[in-house]
């Protein structure tokens, strides 16, 4: 880490500490009701004493499992459909309008139909998360496939590469940066819809944890839950970004 980076990190730490300290100070000043606006320390300590650690870990695990399931489905289907509709002109002509009709419908608007189709169990939650991941992956991958520099395809064609091999060896690698972007956006949206998905008659998960806490007016647990979901999102997104950099960073800048 060079000096400039170290400087930046130090400034960032100062900024973060300042904001947390200000929040703590306001909460403890007596100007606001700590039951409604708890200090961060109070919220975290309170939540950790009221909720057994096993329960918290369980909530995190079940939420992450739902996200991974929905995301994996959405990413796989999104990439496959993007490749097919981006590369095969006729297929693309047929499918594109259908996608254009469905894509603007927000994932959460599917919740009622998800309940009708899949009931109140796990599948409907996974379905909503799936929708969150599917469309961003699809649109980004589609852009990647159709945006491949034509000269690269021509170069491959002069080397007798055509058909499926052209798709696998040139188009997909060239579209990878866009696919990676889609995966990150899709992952973020999976987290974004998590809470709503867990509103569907859930008895577990981080979304349930905070909605449940509201019933008891336990703002400390709500704040803790918000921070916990944010931290999980941040950490996993960071991991995903690292993977992508490992995977594409050698030839693709940023």
């Amino acid at each position, binding site marked *: 880490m060079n000096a400039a980076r170290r*400087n*930046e990190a130090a*400034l*960032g730490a100062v*900024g*973060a500490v300042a*904001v947390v300290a200000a929040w703590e100070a306001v909460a403890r000043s007596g100007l606001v009701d700590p039951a*409604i*606006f708890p200090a961060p320390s109070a919220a975290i300590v309170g939540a950790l004493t009221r909720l057994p650690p096993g329960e918290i870990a369980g909530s995190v695990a079940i939420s992450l499992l739902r996200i991974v399931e929905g995301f994996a489905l959405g990413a796989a289907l999104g990439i496959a459909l993007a490749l097919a509709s981006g*590369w095969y*002109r006729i297929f*693309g*002509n*047929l*499918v*594109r*309008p*259908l996608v254009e*009709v*469905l894509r*603007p*419908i*927000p*994932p*959460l*608007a*599917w*919740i*009622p*139909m998800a309940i*009708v189709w899949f009931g109140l169990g796990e599948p409907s939650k996974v379905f909503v998360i799936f929708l969150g991941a599917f469309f961003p992956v699809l649109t980004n991958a589609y852009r990647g496939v*159709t*945006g*491949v520099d*034509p000269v690269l*395809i021509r170069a491959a*064609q002069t080397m007798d590469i055509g058909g499926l091999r052209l798709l696998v060896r040139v188009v997909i690698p060239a579209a990878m940066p866009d696919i990676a972007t889609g995966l990150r956006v899709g992952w973020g*949206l999976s*987290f*974004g*819809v*998590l*809470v*709503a998905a867990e509103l569907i008659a859930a008895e577990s998960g*981080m*979304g349930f944890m*905070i*909605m449940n806490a*509201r019933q008891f007016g336990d*703002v400390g647990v*709500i*704040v803790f*839950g*918000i*921070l916990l*979901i*944010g*931290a999980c*999102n*941040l950490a996993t997104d960071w991991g995903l970004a690292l993977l992508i950099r490992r995977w594409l960073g050698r030839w693709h800048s940023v």
Partner: protein
Amino acid sequence: MRRALDRPSVQGAAFLVALLLAWEAASAQGWLRAFAFPPPSRIAEAAVEMVVSGFPEGLRLWTHLLVTVGRILQGFFLAMALAIPLGLVIGRAPVLDAMTAPLVTFARSVATLSLLPLVIVWFGIGELSKVVLIAYGCFWVMLTNTIAAVKYVDPVLVRAARTMDVSGPRLFATVVLPAATPRLLAGARVALGVGFMVIVAAEMIGTIQGLGALIMEARTFYRTDISIVGMLALGLLGIAFTSGLSWLERVLIPWHTGLAGVRR
């Protein structure tokens, strides 16, 4: 006729119509349950019902639409009004940028919908909560995009302008801002998408007005046909909102031709 079928849009529309007809036929045959998959004709009837008499009785589609648009626009513009000036300042000041970076990153990672219970405790289940939720989601997206837009303006452009003796506010207005515009537009587009996502969840609580409320409410009355009308209305609304922005984007990147000229 053959010429017409060669047109991509005609092919796509024909496929869509064929799907709808197949769906209708499958319903008529009893292969698809009308409750789970209301046939297109039922959805069309429901749409007419929504326009004429409304659901719940008296709340017409138009009313739901206006309520939803009002909430989105309030939240969206509140966010824009705060995020753009703040982002422009932070993006031009490296120290501020470094100080706020971790906070912004974390705040953006906080799932907007996870704030729902907190916002209810703070602001109740009325209008304010909904607008605050939408504004929160839009704000952080727009802020990060504005910061990046200003920060990553090609330094060559700035240097070129300097050699032409342009600096200060004029540099900002004539070079930095135009160069940042594509990114700002992209940010606004994403923010709008967030707004549309949040509104549905926000309207699930404490209201019977708005498209989000409509689709939830209709299901509890076993009117999935009306739920679908609500979903389609939300989709159309989204298209209307984004088409303005994407038109601007098309004007800004007319060179994007992609694979049009490649033999395959």
